């Protein structure tokens, strides 16, 4: 990491508040962040875990029932072939965007405030992509043949996958993204794993951490190599932030269905994904901050910055909504025009206006500083954005399909309880994983936070290094 001791202090700019509050020493950081891992879980954690695991169980039961019975247990039909399944998929992929954005892109831009949130955000990315990955699997009529998506050598003669199909692109994009994100997360974790290893001399946790920390010894050479790898991985991960949702958007953009077939989709989807990812990071951060007593690490300054980023993305998304309408009008294509009017005034108009209000109207309050510094308000806004972004995907998928070219085939779509249970189950999976992560992995990147710790009165660098070693 770069030197933390050169904050600009020109008279033009008021001194920024420190990134980490509470005058922490390096030892405090280690102690406070490792504390939840080493102590017994709190009652709040248990409540959260039981709720999340129950939701996960509900999801497992409903998916098992669906695979045993058939896709018919969903509310899909001859006209609307995708509903909750792909909505949830795109939603979760979107959630999975902020992690890599925060850890890789902000890293490259030297945004130091990221250090408090990057670990949790990356973990969130992994879990979100896991949730996302489940839906393309279970949405298949015959999920046991999912391996046919992979271009593996086989004995079926010339049978191969169709490289023209965006679903195949998806397969590569998502799996690449997941792999790189997982690697990135893991590499960032190595110094912290070494810290945990060194805090205890016995026990299973120490053994696991010893193996996973790959012989980290805290030497200058280790740090040097580590930072080189981290920079390289950041460089690798950055284009993925843009490629994944670009490719997901091509599932729709390359089709012939009005409302899907638009060239604006790649930037629109990427902006939406970052928007929803930031909202989810904010939601989780605010909860973790409160429940895990990380007030000093996740400060008003972090929340403020995240809010600004979210607001800007919200505006980009709002611009995209407007542009879609304008282009539909400007194209003169009656099918295109109809689809957008049908979104705003047709049977799914409530979903459309939920989307607009949650994603465009409500985030505008973040222009106001008092709102941004009111954590309760920010939490509410982030929840609305989460809801709005789910509806955005629902609107894009379902309203475009349910009334397309031939009015004879127009149909409606309403989810069954199985679909709702599957959605709940995906949240269950996400939160179960996240709570386990909070329990077993330092939620804040200790090594990185220590790098930005510059409040007066802390102990020397020697102490920090000694501890890390």
């Amino acid at each position, binding site marked *: 990491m770069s030197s933390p001791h050169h904050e600009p202090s020109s008279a033009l700019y008021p001194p920024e508040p420190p990134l980490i509050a509470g005058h922490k020493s390096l030892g405090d950081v280690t102690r406070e962040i490792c504390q939840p891992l080493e102590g017994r879980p709190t009652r709040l954690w248990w409540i959260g875990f039981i709720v999340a695991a129950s939701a996960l169980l509900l999801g497992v039961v409903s998916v098992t029932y669906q695979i045993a019975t058939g896709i*018919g247990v969903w509310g899909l*039909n001859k006209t609307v072939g995708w509903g909750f399944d792909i909505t949830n998929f795109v939603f979760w992929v979107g959630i999975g965007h902020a992690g890599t954005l925060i850890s890789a892109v902000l890293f490259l831009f030297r945004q130091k405030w990221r250090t408090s949130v990057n670990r949790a955000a990356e973990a969130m990315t992994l879990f979100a992509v896991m949730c996302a990955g489940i839906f393309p699997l279970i949405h298949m009529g015959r999920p046991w043949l999912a391996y046919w998506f992979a271009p593996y050598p086989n004995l079926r003669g010339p049978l191969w996958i169709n490289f023209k199909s965006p679903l195949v692109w998806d397969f590569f994009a998502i799996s690449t993204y997941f792999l790189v994100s997982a690697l990135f997360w893991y590499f960032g974790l190595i110094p912290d794993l070494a810290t945990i290893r060194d805090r205890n001399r016995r026990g299973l946790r120490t053994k696991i951490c010893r193996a996973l920390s790959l012989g980290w010894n805290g030497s200058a050479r280790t740090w040097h190599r580590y930072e080189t790898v981290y920079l390289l991985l950041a460089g690798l991960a950055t284009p993925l932030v843009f490629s994944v949702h670009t490719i997901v958007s091509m599932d729709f953009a390359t089709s*012939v269905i009005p409302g899907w077939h638009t060239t604006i989709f790649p930037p629109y989807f990427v902006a939406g994904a970052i928007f929803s990812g930031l909202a989810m990071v904010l939601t989780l951060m605010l909860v973790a901050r409160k429940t895990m007593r990380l007030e000093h690490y996740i400060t008003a300054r972090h929340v403020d910055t995240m809010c600004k980023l979210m607001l800007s993305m919200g505006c980009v998304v709002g611009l995209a909504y407007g542009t879609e309408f304008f282009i539909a009008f400007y194209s003169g294509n009656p099918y295109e025009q109809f689809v957008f009017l049908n979104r705003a005034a047709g049977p799914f108009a409530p979903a459309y206006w939920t989307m607009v209000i949650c994603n465009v109207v409500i985030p505008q309050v973040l222009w106001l500083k008092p709102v941004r510094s009111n954590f309760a308000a920010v939490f509410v806004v982030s929840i609305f954005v989460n809801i709005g972004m789910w509806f955005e995907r629902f609107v894009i998928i379902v309203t475009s399909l349910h009334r397309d070219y031939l009015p004879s085939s127009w149909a409606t779509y309403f989810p069954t309880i199985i679909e709702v249970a599957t959605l709940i189950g995906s949240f269950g999976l996400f939160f179960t994983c996240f709570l386990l992560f909070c329990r077993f992995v330092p939620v804040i990147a200790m090594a990185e936070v220590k790098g930005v710790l510059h409040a007066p009165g802390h102990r020397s660098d020697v102490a920090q290094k000694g501890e890390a070693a």
Partner: protein
Amino acid sequence: MTAPHDTTTAKYWKSPAARAGLREEPPLPGVNRRGFLEAAGFATSLVALGGCQRAPTTIVPALTNDTDNVRPGRARSFATTCGGCAAGCGMLATVRDGRPLKMEGMPEHPLSRGGLCAVGQAQVMELYDQERLRGPLAAGKAATWSEVDARIAAALAKIPASGAVRVVTTSTSSPTLRRAIAAFLKRFPDGRHVEADSVSVSAILDAHAATHGARRLPRYRFDKANVIVSFGADFLGTWISPVEFAAAWKSGRALPHREVVHEHGAEAGGAADASNAHAPAKTGRTDAAMSHHVQFESRMTLTGSNADVRHRLHPGEMGLVLSHLLHRVARLAGESGSPTPLASPSISAAVLDALASRLWENRGKALVVCGANDVPTQTLVNHLSQLLDAYGNTLDVDRPSQQLRGDDRETEALAEELASGKVAALFVADIDLVHDFPGGEAIAKDLSRVPLVVSLATRMDDTSAASRFVCPDEHPLASWGDAEPIAGLFSLRQPMMQPLGNARSAIESFAAWSGSGGTVLSLVRATWKEVAFPRQAKETDFTRFWDRAVHDGFVEVDADIEKLAYRGFDPQYVAAAATGKGVAVVLHPQIAIPSSRHAHNPWLQELPDPITKITWDNCVTLSPRLARELGVADNDVVSLKIGDGVVLELPAFIQPGQHDDVAAIALGYGVRGTDRFARVGPQWLEGRSTVGVNGLVGVNAAPLLRFGGGVVQYVRDNVQIAKTGRRHTLATTQLHDHIEVPANVAPPGSKPRDIVQETTLDEYHQNPAAGAPHAHHAAEGELWPDDHPYNGHRWGMAIDLNACSGCSACLIACQAENNVPVVGRDEVARHREMHWIRIDRYYTGDDDDPAVVHQPMMCQHCANAPCETVCPVLATVHSSEGLNQQVYNRCVGTRYCANNCPYKVRRFNWFDYVHDDALANLALNPDVTVRMRGIMEKCSLCVKRIQEGKIEARRLGIPLADGAIRTACQQSCPTNAIVFGDVNDADSAIARAMSDARRYSVLEELNVRPSIGYLRKVRNATREEGDV
């Protein structure tokens, strides 16, 4: 298998002789493998043989000179006569390995001319129905024929001389059955054969008795008519002989092939652009003859939906409008018109004047038909027809129809006799008196007092449940029989398989009870020898005559019928309009379920009605205005009450085009035993039953029927309709009916989508490409090289929207051919019906009184198929012959292809659909895979027929002839609206159709380049008249 062969000492045989030697080895103790298999095989054959109760008979395959009947794995066609209804269409039954699989139309048959309706094709489901009675019952218990015959004979012997013996059948034109019944009844002084139809046209026959001196049903010649005026007769859907009429109607409206001449370009076909809007036609007559069809009707019928001009008319006003028409035509003919002034009808005088003069100008070529079962109204029609010189031209009474001859007065008399306890013995065949007739409940009670009631029903219907003996008739596909639907047209029915059970033909039963006995084959042969053979001169040897009849399926002989004489012009005009009658309820047959007999057929139950698109239910249809007035929405259960206290509760359905004072209900529903369909669909957490609250499919509306004026009245006045507050979801396959998008989401200034293109005859005369939207496609060609060179064949299909009536016969043809599953009401309500072909029905124009277009829609086999590019595993691919192929075992079920299909013709297997009825599974086509759940399917253009045709041509070493391959939908189409073939063959019918000026592609602007072309609809009406 205690001691298996010792493999070290086993001998191997080289020849049968050596093998025989092997057999003579000392027997091993116990059973060895070979011995076990021999015994098992022998036992199986014994069981199989034991199942064949009837002696095998020889049947002769049609259209081929081969004499060996069964070649394993090879399908053969046999000529026979359809038993689906009384119309008696010719039918070819495809039989494979001893079981009939697919019913098709017989192109040579003079009546049906190659078409076959949905009901006729769905008969295979009846044949393989688990619940069809397969043996006689005595007092509800299984019995043997000898036992039942003996007990019936004993009961008959006890009948006193004055005792009335009645045989009630539906109209039957079978000469042999009529003879058998006559012979049986001869024994009794008071024996009578009553013919009763569940949907009767008795009034037409009665009216002819009044005007021409004999009860006779003319044969309607729609092919000879230039002007057709129908008063509520649904002759394309349900009326008398729909396939015959549809074929004839179409032949009077066929347009010649005409191509567009481009002024600058050489390319023919496609949509015309502005530059050739007035180009002259290159070929074909410019004065294409096309009949003008006017329909007056109270509800929206299939026929009305195809009319050039359609007028809504209250059923009570039909007589008045006919009187006006007759009055006007009489004045033109120089006869005296109405003596008293007629009330003014709801139809404007200008329309009536124009119609009267049009009829008069076309006298001899005009046809007026009327569906009302009302004698005075039909009498007016007869007088009008006489003035228009229709008799002998468009109405044939010298070779009249014998398809329906029910006499409602006799039915009414029978009901009275039953009530008075006069009947000593009642035999009921092929008709459900209790379910389908006025006062059915009373009849059921009366039946219990009749000493001997014998039902010959093929299943346990309401009448057989009230009968002492049930002597089930054999299915028409499994027994000999005959029909004479038109006087002089003898049509033969031959068994397509060994009987599945122990049922007995009604002919044989009556012969047994009359004491003469004989097998059905001998009786049919005898009839033909004595009745048909002497009336022809072509064949001198009866055996040859018979063989030809068996081969061809029909024989035309001289009609043995007296000529009719008109008794003179003396009409009883209807002077006053029906007033103050409130809302009338109209009871009508449904196209899919023309009578209660077909209610057990799952294919027909799931066939969307061509107009309402409702499956698995009947309902009460109301006009949009009446529904608004009553505050009723679709699916609201309403109660209908007529003064005398009959209350029916049915779900309501809003039907544009229906008269505002009319509620219409389909008959033939709520049939005993249809509770079997409760679990016909997939069973899952949210799955709902296919039956209604009464536990049956639909509600029986027959309790609303009444006798009156010597006929069964299908129209009842003064019905009170009230909401019950309950709801019942009607499963429709089409939610949005109008071609225009809803006004609240319509882009400003947008025009209706040009999915269905139509024009008027006048415009078509000026420009054969009239009706095309302005060209909006680049003529520059493709940027990319063509992926598909199509060097050999290139399959294509053209559908003539001017011929298609929307009758939906093709749906059942496709279902039977391609093993399309039945999914049940709930799945249809969830928009998951599986039919590979659907008929899109659009309304255009006014919401209350719209014009209708029907458009068959199936996979368009696009050259630039959007489905093909998106499949991740290449499960849908393009063939070198232009087919878009679905590879079932490669499909993983992402449904992306279905989403990306602009025509929404792909069907996904949401569940594993029920295939656990081993008997019903016999109807499955072994050439077509039964699809498992989780995979996509769609129209294959009958690829197995294509392959079969190609292989056959290769085997014979001849080039594939145009027309040698016919898809299932094409084969059965009564109006020949579908043309299929090789577009690359310049001389083929399909190539001509594709270059026709009327040809267009649906959604041409997407440049998916479909292989299915549509020929524009032409209405013989002005734009104002026809709502074009």
